[in-house]
């Protein structure tokens, strides 16, 4: 078990050495959310109605920016080869790396969510629903996103292609998450939506590491 702990510690150390790369997607998220009151209208009730959609769309877009960092450095400087050569199970290695990535880039997003809720004038129970959907949804973003990152890591201009690949796949998550927060606004129960997101998350946790390992091998070749 200490092998994978070593990789986790290494990723954490690298992440804290490159703080700027972590802060930038968050600033992007904040700015995108700030554009909506300026673009649409500052009146509190319109903001409340479009709030959940705005936050989730901005979260998906900013996650696409942060996603690329996942394997890019390791691929370019050859550490990925050394992982494969060390005989460790690649699915387990990618699962650990995705967990480290989630901790480093999505947990700060959760910490920022009260500010976003305040900007878009969400009520308290809407905010609770938002945090629940983010808690369940963002690991899903990381896991599925890592598959596409594994595939495009070998390409130079992988950035936009990543968005093209991932946005369609994230649509179900967006639909269920925003509908959960909307029904929270109307004081309706939203356990059904949460259950569906949780189901998607469990499915991804089970299958994605193997898909990530395979996509890394494909781009390694």
């Amino acid at each position, binding site marked *: 078990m*200490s*092998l994978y702990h*070593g*990789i986790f*510690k*290494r990723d954490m*150390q*690298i992440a804290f*050495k*490159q703080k700027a790369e972590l802060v930038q997607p968050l600033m992007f998220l904040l700015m995108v959310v700030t554009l909506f009151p300026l673009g649409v209208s500052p009146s509190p009730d319109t903001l409340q109605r479009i709030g959940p959609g705005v936050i989730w769309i901005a979260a998906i877009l900013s996650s696409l920016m942060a996603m690329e960092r996942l394997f890019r*450095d*390791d691929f*370019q*400087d*050859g*550490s990925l*080869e*050394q*992982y*494969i*050569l*060390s*005989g*460790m199970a690649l699915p387990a290695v990618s699962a650990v790396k995705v967990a480290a990535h989630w901790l480093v880039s999505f947990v700060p997003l959760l910490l920022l969510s009260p500010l976003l809720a305040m900007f878009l004038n969400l009520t308290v129970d809407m905010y609770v629903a938002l945090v629940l959907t983010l808690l369940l949804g963002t690991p899903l973003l990381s896991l599925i996103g890592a598959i596409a990152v594994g595939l495009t890591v070998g390409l130079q201009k992988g950035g936009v292609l990543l968005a093209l690949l991932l946005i369609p796949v994230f649509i179900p998550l967006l639909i269920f998450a925003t509908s959960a927060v909307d029904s929270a606004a109307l004081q309706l129960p939203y356990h059904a939506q949460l259950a569906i997101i949780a189901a998607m998350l469990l499915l991804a946790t089970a299958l994605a590491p193997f898909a990530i390992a395979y996509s890394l091998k494909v781009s*390694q*070749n």
Partner: protein
Amino acid sequence: MLEACGLTCSKRDRTLFEGLSLVINAGELLYLRGPNGAGKTSLLRILTALNEPELGTVLYNGIDISKDKSGYYQALFYLGHKSGTNGSLSALDNLSFWLAQHKVSVDVNALYDVLEKVGLVGLEDVPVRYLSAGQQRRVALSRLWLKPAKVWILDEPFTALDVKGIHMLESSMKDHVAKGGLIVTTSHQPLSETAGKHRVFDLEYRF
């Protein structure tokens, strides 16, 4: 004993080599020679199972390496073009993480000695991206003396070394072969006699 039988590999519609068979016994140094683009690196990567050949298999002690990887990888050390060191970590951190992954436990002053051996005194705790490309390759090379591997597959190991470094590497190659190790290496300049007895294998450039 490393054996390649009937390897075929093509890169972007150009067949690099076809039906290539090769046997390397323990205690032997194979010097892979050939012009640029002849497919030396691809052959080495196929020997390490990083790349799969279109046809043919590679056996290590009779077992197909694409099937049972962990046994083969325990005994393998591969030095590629990429240094395998992360830029924002220091040489020491990179080495200690790499050793942890390869299940080798070594104490810190051994790391300092090895880095001194490759001429990186005083640069041990500097983030690797501040080192020159040659120094980064020497950090990658220093892992050679840390992991007790039987099979050494080295891709252009001499590029970053000065005269003293080349002499030191060739003598450790000689001891490794003497101790029953197995080495496959490529190099631009020919191996001098300090590297001991070695077999040459030529790879022509195919159009």
